[in-house]
Every structure is written in C-alpha cells, then in structure tokens.
C-alpha cells in the first residue's frame, strides 16, 4: 500500500493538494499511534473526493489534518496555492475561513446554550463582516436554503431540532463564510436512513449552487459512491486505491477494496451475503505490519507483500492501486445480475 507514490496526482486546477501527509500521536507509555503514514491526494475544483475506510484507518485524522487540527507531523497541505502547514497562527486563521468542516454528531456540533441562529451568525461576528442587518439577512437566506425556518431558528436551541435538522444547521454555519472547500467528516453516519438521503441531496444541491468543492469522509461505501466523483480507500494510515467512483465499484483492484465491497449488506435477498474472506481483526496503528500493511489479512499475500511496501500504480483511466498483486479481473459486487437497476424510478 502506498505512502510513497505520487503517480495518481494530477494536473489541473487543484483546490487542495496534499503530499506525504504524516500524522502521529504520542499516547501513554511512550507509544506512538501512526494514524496517517504518508498519503498524498488532490482535489480538483468542483470535485467531490470521497475518503473511505473502516475505523482506525486514519480518514478522520486526515480530514482534521487538512484543517490543521492538530498540525500534522509532516507533509504539505497546499490549499489554493498556499501551504497551510507553513502558515503562522494568524495567517492560518484567515486561510481557514475558506475551508470549513462538518462533523459527525449533529447535536454536539452546536452550542446547546445558544439559539441556532446565533450559532450560524457566529462566524460573521468573529470576522466582523457587514453590518448587523446585512449579517441577519445573509444568515436568514442561508438558513432557508438548507430548509430551516429562520424564525424558528431565532427562537430555538439545538435540542429542539432533530438530528437531520441540526446537521443542516451545521451546513448553514459552514456556508456563511463563503468557503471554497468543505470537509465533511462522517456527516450522515449518525442519522436515520431517510434523513440521510435528505442531507446527501442537500449537499449536492448546495455544491452546485455555491460552487463548492467537497471532501467527503465516511465508512459507508454506498453513501460515498453516491456523493463522490473520485474515491480514495484508506487502510491503517495508507492509501490502497484511488479511482473514479463508478470505476472503483465496477472494477476494484485492491483485495481490501474487494473485501469492503463484499461486506456491504445489499438490500437484496438474492445477493451474496456470505462474509468475504478476510482474516482476523485490524491490527493496532501503534504497531503496523511491515511491508504492505494489509498483508497479514490478505488472502493473496506472499513474501513480497511482507517485505516491500507497494506504491500506487496506474491501472488505466485514472484508476490507481497500491498492491503487488492487484485483482485484474473485473468483479461486479453487490448486483445479482447486471440487468437489475435499483434506480429511484422503479
């Protein structure tokens, strides 16, 4: 699995370019958690990059590292031409207005003691933008565009709203400073299925309306596929595979991606529901395996995998995989037969 591959980086109008990002934490008893161990990726303007992986893979840490919370151990994060890691506190604060974040827990993302409208207005207050009347107007407008009644927002606190509504309020707050890039850290994981769809649709609409670029971090592959243009799969701090959404799901090349896809329970009784051949439990990020980090659990692993870390190699069509023995054969996962189409129009 790569850390040391840049083959998948592209040319073009990049809003975000992350190179060789390393994030490590010291924990008790002198151990170091190697949460992210050298990943690189880029996001073109107007694109949605999905970062997917299970718990402990480092995807949330990556999202926060982009925001410099905390500052990464090493690597560069170039946002609109500026390397955020090299900025001083004040410059960083200013740069941050253009990069915003949405979190997983909708209720705890809002201050319980303040009215919702106040919370959304807060960024404008911090930066002193416009007059009071102008701020109120902007806030009301944005609240309406996320489907929240501004009147109600002015009088109510977060606990009076549902999880889905709170998440929409958080989105509104993120939009108020007119950002270029929004990082979504598992924004729908804590929501009911029907509410999830509302928020996902909302993000797509707002992206189009405000010309946003998104980084969407999640563990639910179906959700990530739905909202992303390009998907990066992470495992234990490394990138396994990067490809366009449709490509990744149609032709997964990395064994881990394969396992992930097979493990998703499809709402179709005729689909294959047996658990994929994956061995054991994820190892601890304090002591990651040598060579390819996935090799102890990979059904195809051999000596090479234990010795040498694979680099990201092109598979064609913007599809890159970090594996010594990528799966060459196309595997259609999840569909019983290609003819079935479960598009909403049935």
């Amino acid at each position, binding site marked *: 699995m790569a850390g040391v591959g840049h083959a998948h980086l592209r040319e073009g109008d990049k809003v975000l370019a992350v190179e060789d990002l390393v994030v490590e934490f010291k924990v008790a008893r002198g151990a170091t958690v190697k949460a992210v161990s050298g990943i690189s990726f880029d996001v073109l303007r107007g694109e949605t990059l999905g970062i997917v992986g299970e718990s402990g893979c480092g995807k949330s840490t990556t999202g926060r590292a982009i925001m410099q919370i905390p500052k990464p151990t090493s690597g560069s994060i170039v946002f609109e031409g500026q390397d955020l890691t090299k900025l001083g506190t004040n410059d960083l604060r200013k740069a941050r207005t253009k990069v915003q974040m949405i979190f997983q827990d909708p209720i705890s993302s809002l201050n319980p003691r303040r009215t919702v409208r106040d919370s959304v207005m807060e960024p404008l207050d911090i930066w002193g933008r416009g007059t009071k009347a102008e701020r109120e107007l902007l806030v009301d407008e944005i609240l309406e565009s996320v489907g929240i009644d501004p009147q109600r927002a002015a009088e109510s606190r977060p606990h009076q709203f549902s999880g889905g509504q709170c998440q929409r309020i958080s989105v509104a707050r993120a939009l108020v400073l007119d950002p270029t890039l929004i990082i979504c850290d598992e924004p729908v994981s804590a929501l*009911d299925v029907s509410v999830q769809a509302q928020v996902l649709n909302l993000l797509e*609409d707002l992206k189009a309306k405000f010309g946003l670029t998104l980084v969407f971090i999640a563990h639910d592959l179906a959700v990530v596929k739905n909202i992303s243009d390009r998907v990066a799969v992470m495992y234990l701090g490394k990138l396994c595979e990067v490809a366009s959404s449709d490509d990744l799901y149609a032709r997964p090349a990395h064994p881990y991606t394969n396992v992930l896809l097979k493990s998703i*329970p499809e709402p179709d*009784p005729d689909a294959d529901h047996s658990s994929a051949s994956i061995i054991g439990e994820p190892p601890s990020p304090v002591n990651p395996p040598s060579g390819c980090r996935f090799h102890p659990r990979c059904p195809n692993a051999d000596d090479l995998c234990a010795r040498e870390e694979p680099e990201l190699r092109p598979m064609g069509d913007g599809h890159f995989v970090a594996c010594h023995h990528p799966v060459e054969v196309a595997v259609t996962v999840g569909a019983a037969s290609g003819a079935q189409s479960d598009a909403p129009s049935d």
Partner: protein
Amino acid sequence: MSVTSPTGLGVSRSTSDGPLLVLDDLKTHFRTERGLVRAVDGVSLTMERGESLGVVGESGSGKTVLSRSIMGLLPSTAVNHGSVKFAGQEILGLPTKQMRHLWGAEMSMVFQNPLNSLNPLMRIGKQITESLRLHLDMDKSNAEATAVQLLRDVHIPEPEKRLRQYPHELSGGMRQRVMIAIALACGPTLLLADEPTTALDVTVQAQILDVINEQRRDRNMSVILVTHDLGVVAGHTDQVAVMYGGRLVERAPTRTLFANMKMPYTKSLMRSIPKLDDPSHTRLATIPGRPPDLVNPPQGCRFAPRCAYVRDKCRTEEPPLVQADSPDHVYACWYPVGSPEFIERDAEVKASGLLTASAGVGMAG
C-alpha cells in the same frame, strides 16, 4: 425435535409443538410528564422455532422497545397490554423473579454496544461461566471448558487465553462475539439481537452476522434481529417485520417483501438508500419530515403526514392490517403499492419531481 449444539447442551427444552413466540396486540406505553408515550402500539406476530425474524425501523419506530418488551426488560414506568406467549406460556407482565429463570436460559439478548454491555471489571471467562453456573448448576472446571468451547464456536482465536482477559483488551468485534457467547451459553431457544452490528466496522459486521446465523442453524435457535439496515435484514432473515410509529406496518417473508413491497413507507425507504449498483450522483428519494410524536400520534395512518401517496382517507382512518397475495404477507395501507390509486399518484409524483424533492421539503419537520 432436540438438536445437540456443539457445546453438548440440548436445546429446545420446551416440548410444545406450537410456534415459539406469539405476540398478540402487544402494546407498551410509558407514562411521562408530557403524556403517554405509545412506544409500541399494537403489534401481533408469530415466530417458529429456528426461524430468523428481522424487525426493521428507524428511530422512534418502537423496534427496540418491542424487543425489550418481549424480554420483559422495561422500566417501571412502562404499561403493557396484550399478550406475549413464549413456548405457549404467557410471559408479559411476569414478575422479575420468574423472568430470571427465562433470562439466559431460554431467551437471551445481545445489545448494540458491547463496551457498555460487558462488565469492565470482570474477566471474560467469569462473565460467561456466571451464567452457566447459575442456570445449569455446572461446577467450575466444567463451566470453564464449556466457556472455551463457546468462544471457539464464535470463532475467537486463542479462546483459553481470552478467558483471563478483560473486555477492554479486546477489539469491538471480539467483544461482540463474547457477548454472543454469553448469550448462547445456556442454549437459549430465542436470541434477541438489538442492533448488534451498528457500532462495528462493515467487515466485522459481516462476520458477526455470520456467527449469529451459524449458531442459529447449529442450535435450531430462533433469532430476532432488530435493525435499521434493510441490507442486513435482506441477507440474514427469513421473515421481516417493518415498524413505523410504534406499529407493525408490513410483515412478510424476506424474499416476498423485497420482491413485492406493499407499504409506501417501505418502498420509500428502499428508494432513499444509496445502492452500490447505482451510478454515482444518483438522486436519492427522500422522505420529508420526521418520525411521528409518540405522545400524540397523527390520526389515521401514522405515516400519512410524510407519505407522497397520501389521500384524504389516510389522514382520518387508520388502515388495518390486511393480507397481500399470500397469507404470510400482511400490510396496513389503504392505497398500497400496485393499487390503481398508487400507480396514478406515482405517475404524478414522478412527473412533478416531488419524489426526488430536495431537503427543502424538510422544513415541515
């Protein structure tokens, strides 16, 4: 029929031939300051031995309260009506003393968050053998041997070593397996699993569900799987019961349900889930609004305020459970999927794009 499980324990101790579990108009209400919360408001179903039932619903649907009601694990503010017959015996409202004989021995429960469900200060081995010694009167060495076998049954590597470990030393997936082992220790006839995999990674989830299924087959045990995930239900259950607003709105054998959904709610739910086969950026169908207030449920059909196919009758009269094409498929809707009214409205809805309305509609919630 008595099958011996790998641990050597006989199962199906009760000898009655009828269905294992019969719920008849089960109601569970809670008295609160705000009023009477009708968490479960009239659920009837039947379960056979060795069968797997999935109970599907979102927040506020009452699915968790349902499983607790069956087990009898409710707080004192709960008020129960109706009947729950387990192996022919009425167990609703039985005092805790009597329920204790059933818990662990005949019916067991696996909860959502294994970190919260395991005693952090007790070694794993003790937590398993506790149950064995209590219900089956085993001596220490016998119980330990059984515990090791149980851990092996749920595919935990190095089971002898695990006996001496504490919960925090294990990963989430392993803890959940231990929970299952504890639940299975005395060979219960019924296992209730309340969102057993929600807090776990998707690869681990698949493994846990397999373990549950394997044990079910080996022990001829019945399983009630409570979940919000239609995908989980599709692959691991024989029968599915869909709950909404405290009521049972559709029940059918799994395959029948997915092939022939009658309730617009179930259908809308299916449509709002992103599927792997769909191309990226497929517009998801949404269900506007929020689940109903269980203190003051809407008059008529509880889903009416959110249903895109609603008509006047739905708002005033509550639809009863009726049979679909086969007797084991029931649903509660005046204008189900496939009816002329539904088809008519479906065309309108698709034409106007309401079906794929964006979150702006959510203002009502």
